[in-house]
């Protein structure tokens, strides 16, 4: 198994800062915009984005929720066993709001498709945008593209992209894992 670091240290921090500034360009003071992290790993990223935005905007009331997509997945009954669910915490109304969906890695796009479906159960947002830290490009199964991208990478199906966070794993880092020595 080979591991290659795609993003870490200062570059990782700069990437997140850049994404936050791009968000501010489009959403001003976030008075009508909310952040929704996709459970489980997207919610860590959303926490970080919220933290950075609060520092830049000197504002602490940016709304952030977590969305679980387990019951909306399209692979239910198509594989062995099921993925256990996570909690939904959306304590605000998304009707008429701009929603930034946040996930760590965009690959086939199926998670985002399910997330769009799950999001509708909470109301009809004015607009939904997608923010991802890593875009594994040219590997989509559905026509979904991100609006904000931390880093685009070219990967093989057999490879895995793993994002770790300081809060949970002790280090901000993105690695690419390749099986065997191909």
């Amino acid at each position: 198994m080979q591991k290659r670091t795609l993003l870490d240290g200062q570059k990782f921090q700069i990437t997140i800062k850049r994404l936050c500034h791009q968000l501010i360009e489009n959403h001003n003071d976030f008075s009508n915009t909310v952040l929704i992290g996709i459970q489980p790993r997207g919610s860590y990223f959303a926490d970080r984005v919220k933290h950075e935005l609060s520092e830049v905007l000197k504002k602490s009331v940016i709304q952030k929720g977590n969305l679980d997509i387990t019951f909306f997945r399209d692979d239910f009954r198509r594989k062995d066993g099921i993925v256990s669910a996570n909690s939904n915490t959306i304590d605000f109304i998304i009707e008429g709001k701009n929603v930034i969906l946040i996930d760590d890695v965009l690959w086939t796009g199926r998670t985002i498709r399910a997330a769009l479906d799950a999001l509708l159960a909470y109301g009809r947002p004015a607009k939904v945008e997608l923010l991802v830290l890593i875009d594994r490009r040219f590997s989509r199964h559905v026509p979904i593209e991100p609006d904000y991208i931390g880093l685009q990478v070219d990967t093989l199906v057999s490879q895995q992209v793993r994002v770790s966070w300081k809060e949970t794993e002790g280090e901000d880092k993105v690695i690419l894992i390749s099986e065997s020595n191909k």
Partner: protein
Amino acid sequence: MAVEKLSTRHLLGIKDINRNDIELILETADHFKGVINRTIKKVPSLRDITIANIFFENSTRTKLSFELAEKRLSADVVNFAASSSSVSKGETLIDTVNNILAMKVDMVVMRHPYAGAGQFLSKHIKAQIINAGDGAHEHPTQALLDAFSIRQRLGDVAGKKVVIVGDILHSRVAISNILCLQKLGAEVMVCGPTTLIPKHIESLGVKVEHNLIKALNWCDVANMLRIQLERQDIKYFPSLREYAMMYGLNKQILDNLDKEIIVMHPGPINRGVEITSDVADSKQSIILEQVENGVAVRMAVLYLLAAQND
């Protein structure tokens, strides 16, 4: 993201499932409780599944609860009540069910007056079977929702003391509850007149008590059962009035206990017999919470079983 699954393809009784299964069902039910409290109470998980609810015995709560659970998972639902069907023309159980299955049904939720009807069916047909009560044998989803309700109120089931009061002899709720609570680490006692306590029930590891006050002082939770007159072929006690005096729970008894206990009832309630109105409607009663939780627990059962299909 742990991938988990149940150890069984059917839910015929609590006897056939293990503690992990029960905990997986309760945890999944937690998430479904979140779903049914949203504005849009529906998820698309079971949209390619057809479920037949086959009830050979009367039911209000269980039938409605299953139907709501199925619909909130987006399954297609067909209902069948034996009283208005060809069963009254002499059709056998297997024939009835096979005919329903010929219409491409994936799961069968069945209530039947005979113990073991679910087991019998599971050996002869391909669909997954969920037992919604078979005679005086088991009623697994009721036991699961009771455990879920206790866990919700008291934080945990393990280490808690639960007394089941009333007609234990004819009760499928009692058997399933005893097995489920014990698997989750609770202590169980049964209480009622000698004639309504099955012989050798101690072999299940439960305590037996004939004095209601003593039983209530021992427990954290009291599950009051209905006297199932429809199943009683002989007289087991002199009169309902005497039963109510000896084993009926009223507000005075409840207030005089050393501690505050929780009162449960699987329904339907016979007010004034096993439980008085002021107890049924009191703060300590979680009867309506049980009903609400029933939908979430049944969604969890259907969802987890559907995931087994291959």
